[in-house]
């Protein structure tokens, strides 16, 4: 028969082998995820339950020497820094994406695009260095100068929420720009033509058709940015001061030194005793849950788009 499958065809066997190898590779990523999750939860969960989940999450004192493990200040630190960084980074990132795709002359886009990619590739420790040298210094001058009367002494070092926010805003820019730019670029030409054909101007077309049509992609970009921001560790440790305290509410918060969840783990894992270690794993669980929530939001949005 003409179209019959050949049984022991060489290319069929090769195909089969390649398939198996690819499957194992795909599986390995799932397995690593499973292993990591298992270890984090295995180490952290029993401790969390023993200690009391609410005491752990809402406790405001973190003092491993006295076996007191409340991570609320770190949760507050992570959330404040991330939210403020998004408030700065997201609008700028979206604006840059719109500019690059719809407005910038090709020559400008040709320079800016690689620059953004490069920014994405800079190791976070290097960005942290930049923050320590430039941003901290600037903030220290401001808080010790004109603002010194209004700020407690501990808030005048420059190591602060604001420093972390600025650094994170810079670090999430490439993510937000590249993903929103992709979704803006994917807006069908027909939409734009439809708009122009009715006598809409370029700006009207951009803000009333292009951006709304790219909305879900832009939202996904922002959410991924949140994920990136909340998980950032090195650069953050270098600029936020890392002291375990809940900042004074109000504008002073900006100058408060804080510690993030990621910072908490990275700073103390090196010397932690057994119980302390478990408490850090439990911190990891909280971080994990944040990330899971954020990623499911992205998935949800992706699904709604199709």
């Amino acid at each position, binding site marked *: 028969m003409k179209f019959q499958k050949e049984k022991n065809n060489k290319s069929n066997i090769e195909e089969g082998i390649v398939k198996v190898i690819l499957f194992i590779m795909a599986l390995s990523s799932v397995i690593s995820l499973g292993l990591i999750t298992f270890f984090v939860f295995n180490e952290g969960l029993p401790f969390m339950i023993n200690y009391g989940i609410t005491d752990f999450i809402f406790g405001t004192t973190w003092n491993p020497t006295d076996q007191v493990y409340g991570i609320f200040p770190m949760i507050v630190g992570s959330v404040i820094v991330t939210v403020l960084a998004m408030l700065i980074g997201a609008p700028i990132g979206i604006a840059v994406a719109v500019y690059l795709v719809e407005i910038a002359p090709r020559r400008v886009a040709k320079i800016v695009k690689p620059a953004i990619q490069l920014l994405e590739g800079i190791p976070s420790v290097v960005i942290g260095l930049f923050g320590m040298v430039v941003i901290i210094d600037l903030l220290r001058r401001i808080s010790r100068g004109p603002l010194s009367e209004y700020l407690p002494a501990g808030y005048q070092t420059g190591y602060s929420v604001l420093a972390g926010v600025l650094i994170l805003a810079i670090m999430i820019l490439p993510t937000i720009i590249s993903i929103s730019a992709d979704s803006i670029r994917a807006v069908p030409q027909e939409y734009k033509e*439809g708009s122009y054909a009715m006598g809409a101007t370029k700006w009207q077309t951009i803000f009333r058709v292009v951006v709304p049509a790219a909305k879900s992609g832009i939202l996904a970009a922002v959410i991924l940015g949140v994920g990136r921001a909340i998980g950032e560790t090195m650069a953050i440790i270098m600029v936020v001061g890392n002291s375990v305290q809940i900042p004074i509410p109000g504008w002073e918060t900006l100058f408060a030194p804080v510690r993030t969840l990621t910072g908490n783990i990275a700073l103390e894992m090196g010397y932690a005793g057994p119980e302390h270690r478990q408490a850090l794993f439990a911190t990891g669980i909280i971080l994990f849950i944040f990330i899971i929530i954020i990623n499911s939001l992205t998935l949800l949005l992706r699904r709604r788009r199709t």
Partner: protein
Amino acid sequence: MTNQKESNAIIEIEDLDFYYNQTKALKNVSLDINKNEVFAFIGPSGCGKTTLLRVLNRMNDLIPKTRVVGKVQIEGHDIYDPNVDVVQLRKSVGTVFQKPNPFPISIFDNVAYGPKAHGIKNKKELMEIVEESLRQAALWDEVKDRLNDSATGLSGGQQQRLCIARVMAVKPEIILMDEPTSALDPIATLKVEELINELKQNYTVVIVTHNMEQAARVSDKTALFLNGSIIETNETNQLFTNPKEQETEDYITGKFG
């Protein structure tokens, strides 16, 4: 051409050449289209019908490296004059595209888009325009209870009528339609054709079609294009029953195209 006809022309095209980069897509096109007339462009694929349509409201400006040589006048104004405001031009020369392209926003917002873009903010006024336009496009009864639903949920035929309503909301003088029914089923096609017949009262319609029966049904005059040139222009029934050129006869009898 009699003088009387010339004075009635709302669109006058004279010795028009059009280039995409180095490629000449329109050659020496001259054509007059009268007010309140339905004018059909027919011809084989790639002969330049869409190109000419897009010349008429300068949509080709959006394609880089295109060039227009010759003169195109609408209501006596040279539309390629450097002082022409393209936004105003497109306001009075609306387009319905081959593929229905409603925006991915609500039905209401689609129709209100043009008026809003031109500065109408009053909610009540917008509502009136939307209703009137949707009625004109014979879509009102089908969508009046779901104006806030997304336009992308409409059927293809409804989407195309929505696009027609959207154009009418801007109150243009001229409506350009590029194969407006090519994506529609026969019933939806019929509705759009009926609509075109009504539009004639108030608008000038230029329609591109591959369907010669459609040209015969809806248009007053027809121009046949071949390879970027106009072969013959005439009253539609004359062109189909009594073609002057051999090429026209070959085309309408299906010898090529």
